[in-house]
């Protein structure tokens, strides 16, 4: 048993209908010295309006440069059990599916080596073990990764300037809109680039997110350097009877479906829903509204967009289109995506500045130059509109004979 701490401020956050993180910390604090110190130091932060965590220093497991984020408290005399309290990222299974057997196994390991607190899951997708001492890192990793007869082995996720742990939506495991196998693609890419995941040698982080359709439930377009967003090329499949059922159930097909279509490519005459598929931009609105009546087409693949990031350092960016349509057949082993990725890494790896994400790098060197270097032809789908300024860097190739 640990000594019970007095936490009047945090106790206020045990009230109310939403699940309380304070209750969660207290569930372990009664028997775990580290966690009891977390409770104490957090109460102090609430009193002082200030974080008491420090960063810096290189910590990790042997042979890896990522997976552990060094964290220390700045009050080690008062809170000795969290003097070191590192974030430990464990690579999650695709789409966060678990059996109770494997979850209990992870809980047992984390009870043995750390605070018993987790994040399910961290922002990038990893299982986060919240708080390990420096001494526990290596034995915890050994037990997680070792071969067992009846239990899968786990590996660490990414941190620092490496490929970060890829993540994906629930995809074909439970979603009728998945236009490619997000779970398989995520697993395949993660396994293929293990070296890049564990050993940081990029200018900065590089994230992959796999979304099965343009609803983008993993926020890939906002959060990943490489956003793989599932899409179809052919016609939306319509079940006209079910459209009528939707109307009977209260949906105003014209107002709620046709009039909200961004390209107004749908017509409803009370009997038949007609779609001009050549003008459909695959926004998903109509399909989201009527899942029984409308379904994505069957000629499926993904759009590859590059370059999203949060503000640090040069401002936030959304990913932009690189490949309008790429087949994502598992049989192909995602060779095209891997080839594109390696070309980007080679170029950015050589010329990117420290802490410069791909999106910022592309803005600095220019998209045209970037495309030329990685060997992609420019297509109009890549821009919202063509340039509006006449400051064009012309090459000799614009002249028929190649020179003036």
């Amino acid at each position, binding site marked *: 048993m640990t000594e019970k701490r007095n936490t009047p401020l945090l106790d206020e*956050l045990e009230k*109310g*209908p*939403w*699940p309380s993180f*304070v209750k*969660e*910390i207290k569930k*372990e604090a009664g028997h775990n010295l580290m966690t009891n110190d977390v409770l104490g130091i*957090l109460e102090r932060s609430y009193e002082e*309006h*200030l*974080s*008491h965590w*420090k*960063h*810096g220093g290189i910590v990790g497991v042997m042979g890896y440069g990522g997976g552990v984020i060094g*964290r220390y408290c700045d009050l080690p005399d008062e809170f000795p059990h969290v003097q070191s*309290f590192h974030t430990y990222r464990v690579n999650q*299974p*695709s789409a966060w*599916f*678990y*059996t*109770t057997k494997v979850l*209990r196994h992870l*809980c047992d390991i*984390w009870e043995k080596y750390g605070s*018993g607190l*987790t*994040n399910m899951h961290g*922002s990038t997708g990893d299982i986060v073990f*919240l708080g390990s001492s420096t001494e526990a890192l*290596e034995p915890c990793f050994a*037990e997680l*990764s070792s071969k067992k007869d009846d239990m899968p082995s786990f*590996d660490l996720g990414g941190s620092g300037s490496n490929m970060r742990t890829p993540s994906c939506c629930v995809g074909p*495991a*439970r979603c*009728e809109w998945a236009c490619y196998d997000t779970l398989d693609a995520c697993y395949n890419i993660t*396994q293929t680039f293990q070296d890049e995941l*564990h050993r940081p040698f990029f200018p900065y982080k590089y994230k992959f997110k796999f979304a099965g359709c343009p609803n*983008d439930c993993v*926020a890939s377009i*906002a959060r990943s350097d490489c956003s793989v*967003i599932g899409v179809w090329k052919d016609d939306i499949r319509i079940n006209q009877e079910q459209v009528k059922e939707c109307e009977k159930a209260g949906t105003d097909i014209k107002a709620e479906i046709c009039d909200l279509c*961004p390209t107004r490519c749908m017509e409803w005459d009370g009997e038949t829903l007609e779609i001009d598929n050549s003008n459909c*931009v*695959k*926004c998903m*609105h109509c399909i989201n509204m009527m*899942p029984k009546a409308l379904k994505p087409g069957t000629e499926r693949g993904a759009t590859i967009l590059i370059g999203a990031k*949060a503000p*640090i350092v*040069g*401002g*936030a960016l*959304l990913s932009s289109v690189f490949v309008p349509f790429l087949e994502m057949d598992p049989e192909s082993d995602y060779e095209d995506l891997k080839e594109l990725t390696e070309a980007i890494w080679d170029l950015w790896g050589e010329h990117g*500045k420290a*802490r410069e994400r791909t999106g910022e790098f592309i803005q600095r060197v220019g998209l045209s130059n970037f495309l030329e270097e990685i060997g992609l032809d420019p297509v109009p789908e890549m821009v919202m509109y063509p340039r509006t300024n006449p400051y064009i860097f012309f090459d000799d190739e614009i002249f028929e004979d190649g020179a003036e």
Partner: protein
Amino acid sequence: MPEFERQTDIGPPHYGQFLPEVIKKNYGKWDYHEILKPGVMVHVAESGDKLFTVRAASPRLLAITSIRKFCDIADKYCDGHLRWTSRNNIEFLLTDESKIEPLIKEIEDYGFPIGGLGAELSNIVHTQGWVHCHSSASDASGVVKAVMDELFPYFSGEKHLPAKMRIAYACCLNMCGAVHCSDIAILGVHTRAPVINHEDLPKMCEIPTLVASCPTGAIRPATVDGKQTVEIVEEQCMYCGNCYTVCPACTINNAKTDGISIWVGGKVSNSRVAPMFSKLAIPFIPNNPPRWPEVVKAVKNIVETYASNARKHERMGEWIERIGWPKFFELIGQPFTKYHIDDFKHAGETFRRTAQLRH
């Protein structure tokens, strides 16, 4: 001989071994889904098989005691299968419809409410805050808890919204979450330049790397008391904290001047309109733990104003685009200030370059 023989570069375990039988059988062959009630949906396969999902709230920070309890519940009702969503909700997966109600009761009795599906408020994705982060300008879990307590009826399905709402929280500009493209983004902000510890800096940090880390060039090499260190041009600093991450001797955290800003109208889905960034609504609210009443009130005001004014299916950003930003600020009762006008890269693109105005 060590007890466990470590392996490296093995990657995550294959997901296939964790999937329920009904998913293995119907993988990629789902026909449609329906939301049956708040927090409960069914997916129907082409084969006719049904998979029920019960979605529960989570504070993201979970004790292993709770995870083990979820395991007990999943063993009892779900043949030992569960998953998490990209917004940290817990999903219990089952095939026997008759078990849904007792399952819900057991999860709720343990303190984890059901909800967050469809045109409702889902969980707030958020960062570590004072629980575990060095650069946090505020706590994360505490603000999220206080906000979700207040907005709870929108999660549980008691109250409805015109369209789905995604709120995100980040405790500093690093934004370890998709905060910058959320219907409402709550963002911790520093408002003063870092304080440099000239004693420690030469021992802890590489000066060229530190100088290069500043996006506005506000950091310059300097000699202070005979020590090779740096100085900061304070009027050039916009408090991003990148220098602090690179060099712990540049302390950005400040108990008196750190606080919270609120951003609105972002989205990531392509539905109807293209993905959008969130834009600044409220530049600064001081930290007021343990329950940040001013932040809670501001967020609730925005949610309620949106809920009573937006058209059906309109996300926050679509609604604001339709009514215009002047009207938005008027409706939420927020003064428009100099802080709302962008002055970073590409700021000119945000200026109104038309005479189309509502008078």
